[in-house]
C-alpha cells in the first residue's frame, strides 16, 4: 500500500497512526505540500482531482478520503477497529467519522491559517472549532458515564483515530484544549495505546517509559 503523505498533515497522520496501530506496512511517498503545492500538480491531480492528500493506492484501489482509508486499513488487518454489529456502536462510529470532517473544516483550517497563512476568517474558524470540541467533550462525558473510554465503545475504533489528530493539534490554530477534561483523558488513552506513533506537535506519554539515566563520566 502506497500513501501519498505529508509529515505535517493531520489527515496523513491519521493513516500513518492507524497503520502503526494495526501493523500495516505502508510505502510512504512524500508530497511537497508546502511550499511546492505538489498536491495541486498534474501527477497528483491525476490520482485525486480534488487536490487533497492523503491518497492511498493499493493495486487499482485509489482512496482519497481519510475516513475511508482508516476503514480499509482496519478491515484489511484489524477488524476489531471497526464497529461491531451492535446498532448503537455502528451508528456511533459513523457519527464520529462524519463529525471528524467538521474538525478538519474548523480546527484544521484555523491551523492552516495560523501556520501557513491560508486565507480565512480566523475568529469564525476558531468559534466553529470550539463548538466542535464542546460536542466531543459532551460525547466523551456521556461515554464515560456508560463505562466506555472511547468514542464508540470501550475499545478504540476508527472513529477515535479519525477525530484524534485535529483535536490534539487544536492549539496550533490558537484554540486551547485546557477547558476539556474528558478530551484530555481520551487523548491520554489514545496516546497510551501500544504501537502509538507521534507526529510533530503530538508527543507520546513520556511517563510510560522508565526514566532515562546517563552514566556519569560518559557524557
Amino acid at each position, binding site marked *: 500500500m502506497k500513501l501519498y503523505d505529508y509529515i505535517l498533515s493531520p489527515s496523513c497522520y491519521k493513516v500513518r497512526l492507524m497503520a502503526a496501530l494495526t501493523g500495516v506496512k505502508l510505502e510512504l511517498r512524500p508530497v511537497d505540500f508546502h511550499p511546492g503545492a505538489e498536491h495541486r500538480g498534474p501527477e497528483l491531480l491525476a490520482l485525486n482531482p480534488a487536490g487533497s492528500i492523503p491518497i492511498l493506492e493499493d493495486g487499482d484501489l485509489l482512496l482519497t478520503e481519510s475516513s475511508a482509508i482508516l476503514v480499509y486499513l482496519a478491515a484489511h488487518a484489524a477488524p476489531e477497529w471497526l464497529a461491531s454489529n451492535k446498532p448503537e456502536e455502528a451508528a456511533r462510529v459513523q457519527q464520529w467519522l462524519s463529525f471528524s470532517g467538521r474538525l478538519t473544516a474548523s480546527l484544521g483550517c484555523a491551523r492552516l491559517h495560523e501556520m501557513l497563512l491560508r486565507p480565512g476568517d480566523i475568529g469564525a474558524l476558531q468559534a466553529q472549532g470550539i463548538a466542535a470540541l*464542546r460536542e466531543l*467533550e*459532551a460525547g466523551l*462525558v*456521556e461515554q464515560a*458515564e*456508560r463505562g466506555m473510554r472511547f468514542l464508540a465503545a470501550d475499545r478504540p475504533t476508527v472513529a477515535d483515530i479519525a477525530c484524534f489528530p485535529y483535536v490534539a493539534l487544536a492549539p496550533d490554530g490558537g484554540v486551547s484544549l*485546557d*477547558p476539556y*477534561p*474528558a478530551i*484530555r*483523558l481520551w487523548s*491520554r488513552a489514545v496516546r497510551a495505546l501500544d504501537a502509538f506513533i507521534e507526529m510533530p506537535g503530538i*508527543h507520546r*506519554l*513520556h*511517563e510510560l517509559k522508565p*526514566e*532515562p*539515566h*546517563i552514566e*556519569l563520566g560518559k*557524557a
Partner: protein
Amino acid sequence: MHPDTTGSWTPVALSADLPAGTVIPARIPAGSIALWRSESGRPAASANRCPHRGMSLSHGFVRGEALSCIYHGWSYAQAGNCLRIPAHPGLTPPQAIRVKTYPVEETGGVIWVAMGEPSANPPKFEGFVALRSLMAEAGIAAIEAAAGAKASPAGLVEPAESTGTICLLLSAQEDRQTLLHVLLKGEAGTAARIAASRAAESLRRKAEDLQKKGIAQ
C-alpha cells in the same frame, strides 16, 4: 468572586478528572497552576512555570512522586523543590531551585487549591456527588440569571426547582469566563447522570446567550 481572595479556597477541578500519575492546567486568582497527582495518589499544585526556562509545567508529566518539565526534564517534588536536572546527572539541585506551591484539599470529589495560608478547611457539600466540569463564556451574574438562583458565599448555585436538579459550583476565571462544576444531589443512575450533563449544557447555552445580549453584566 471576592475582592480579597488571600487565604481562600478555589474549586479547580474534579477528582475524577485528575487520575494518579497525571498533570493538568488549572487557574486560581493568583494565576495559572499545574495541578498534578502522584502515582501514590497525592494531589499537589504549583505555579505553572518551570524556573529553568519558563515552560508550562502542565505540559509536563508525572513519574512516581515527581512532576517533570517537558522541555529539559527538570523534576520537582510535591513540596516544590527541584529533585533532578537530567543534563547534570551528578548534581544535587540546590535548594534555591523550587516552584511555588499551594495547599490542596480534596473533598466530595472536588479538588480545592488555596492561596496563602487558609484559616479554614474548604467548604463541604454534604450529600452531593460530582458529575463534570465545563467552562462557560459567561460571568457569574449571567449564570445566576440562567439558573434563576444566586450563588452562596461558597459559590454554590442551587437552581430553582423548575429549572432542574443540577447544582453548580462556580469559579470565576479571567475574561468573564466561569468554570462550572456540576454536582448532583445524591447518587444517580447512568441515564439520570447523562440527562444532568445535557441539562448543564443547556444551562450554559442560556447563560452565554444572556451574556451576549448584555442582560447580565
